[in-house]
């Protein structure tokens, strides 16, 4: 059987499958269904400094091959997560945890990440830069290479944990943002976050989602995510976590061939809560079919030969 372990900036995962932030909470709901220790890691719900209530209802809309969400980063805040969720995570998952951290200013990003320095189980910081910068007229950090680099430097200055910047696809050239993060010292990248979209209700002639727009995820975004992982792999040397529409072990293998060192699974968990378990169980067969003894041999494989 193929060796499924992968390495992310020095952090060893038993396999490359990671439930994506925002689709897995802090693990509680899924731990009722299966032993989370089969996972390579999991990326917890995007956590900000203060508690956030999120957006008004409705927050969800369906679309062909996927869904839109405008949850609005609802979370209990970093202090509550450290006090209440971290001890519970230690009971349900003993592997390395990825802490997804949001912020609305450079100071907030740095402060939130610094608070995780003493949380041993957090092995990787995944910094969500798809947040509006309150000090720059609400301009999204992740849409500007300079702002993305500033966040990277601000976080790197306060932590010794590997820092993975989570990139938004809602930009003209994602490779440019990726390079800016790498140059600023990022240890890795995670891409993509959701694609901005909307639906209109023909009965009310108004947007379905109260926030008007929402983030598109699900199989519909898979080819876009794959292409962006491909582009970024050509542009940087640091490891990439591929994310976007992955629903099967075959999709995960495609992501790795495009350049991902590990793979996040998002919306698939919401419609099939056993999705990650099923994908992990199918990985050995996919490795056998592709003729690799070690799954990490797949990373970037489509770029060579």
């Amino acid at each position, binding site marked *: 059987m193929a060796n499924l372990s992968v390495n992310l900036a020095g952090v060893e995962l038993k396999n490359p499958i990671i439930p994506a932030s925002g689709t897995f909470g802090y693990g509680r709901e899924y731990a009722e269904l299966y032993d989370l220790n089969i996972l390579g890691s999991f990326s917890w719900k995007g956590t900000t400094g203060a508690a956030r*209530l999120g957006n008004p209802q409705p*927050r969800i809309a*369906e679309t062909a091959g996927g869904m839109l969400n405008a*949850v609005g980063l609802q979370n209990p805040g970093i202090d509550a997560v450290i006090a209440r969720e971290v001890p519970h995570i230690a009971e349900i998952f003993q592997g390395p945890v990825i802490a997804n951290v949001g912020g609305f200013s450079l100071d907030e990003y740095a402060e939130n990440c610094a608070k995780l320095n003493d949380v041993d189980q957090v092995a990787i910081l995944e910094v969500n830069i798809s947040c509006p910068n309150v000090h720059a007229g609400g301009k999204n950090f992740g849409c500007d290479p300079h702002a993305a680099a500033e966040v990277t430097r601000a976080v790197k200055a306060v932590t010794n944990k590997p820092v993975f910047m989570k990139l938004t696809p809602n930009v003209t050239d994602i490779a440019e943002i990726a390079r800016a993060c790498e140059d600023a010292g990022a240890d890795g990248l995670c891409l993509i976050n959701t694609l901005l979209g909307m639906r209109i209700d023909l009965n009310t002639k108004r947007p379905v989602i109260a926030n008007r727009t929402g983030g598109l995820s699900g*199989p519909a975004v898979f080819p876009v995510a794959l292409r962006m992982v491909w582009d970024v792999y050509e542009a940087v040397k640091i490891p990439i976590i591929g994310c976007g529409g992955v629903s099967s072990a075959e999709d995960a293998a495609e992501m790795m061939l495009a350049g991902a060192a590990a793979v996040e699974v998002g919306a698939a968990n919401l419609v099939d*809560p*056993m999705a990650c378990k099923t994908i992990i169980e199918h990985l050995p067969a996919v490795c056998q079919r592709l003729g690799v003894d070690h799954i990490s041999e797949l990373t970037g494989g489509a770029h060579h030969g």
Partner: protein
Amino acid sequence: MKQSLFTLEHTRQLTDDTYELVLSGDTSAITAPGQFVNIQLPGRFLRRPISICNWTDQALMLLVKVVGDGTRELVRCVPGTELDVLSGLGNGFDPARAGAHPVLAGGGIGIAPLYGLAQRMRDAGQAPTVALGFRSAKDAFYLEEFASLGCRLLIATEDGSLGTRGFVTDCIRNVPECDYVLCCGPLPMLKAVHSLPQLTDGQFSFEARMGCGFGACMGCSIPTRDGYKRVCKDGPILYKEEIVWRTCL
């Protein structure tokens, strides 16, 4: 919560747009009336959350109103169709808290979970009054089923074509001894029932557009007195005192 395959046994049309579905399968995860199931449909990305009308050890009964393409496909499934179902979702009603004079108040398709609730309350020796509201007589369903449980049955229709002309609240005002409500229906109806001065307490079943249906995505969170709650996991039943209307509507 349990994920398993159910087999559609039969479908019966009740009104122009409302159907009764019976599915066979493992119902062991269902613990209380008012819980719901989340059903995967071929070609649809998100599951469809449907309230449980009633259940036995081997079978599940649903009342489904066609409101869009997904529910239309569901009621058109032929017997023998296998459906991937997440069962036993949500908290459900707690009839033990209902006191000596409970009224079950339902509006339209919202009457569905009240049937299994009424049956279990009757089995436990409780005597709930049942108040059901519909648009008109042609939209009414499940009246004989409720009557056969031996419950006192009150009907309201908006056009007066059956029972009291008006809303389910008009029926409940006529039974002032009923001081506890277990309620399911559209949001304006929940709000109207909630405001009835005769009620000391009650349980209200909410609906929402859901992502997952089991508490992971925060897609269905609504504000309550005690902070945000997930309709799918912390609800769908909320208690009278914790409901905050101004931000719900």
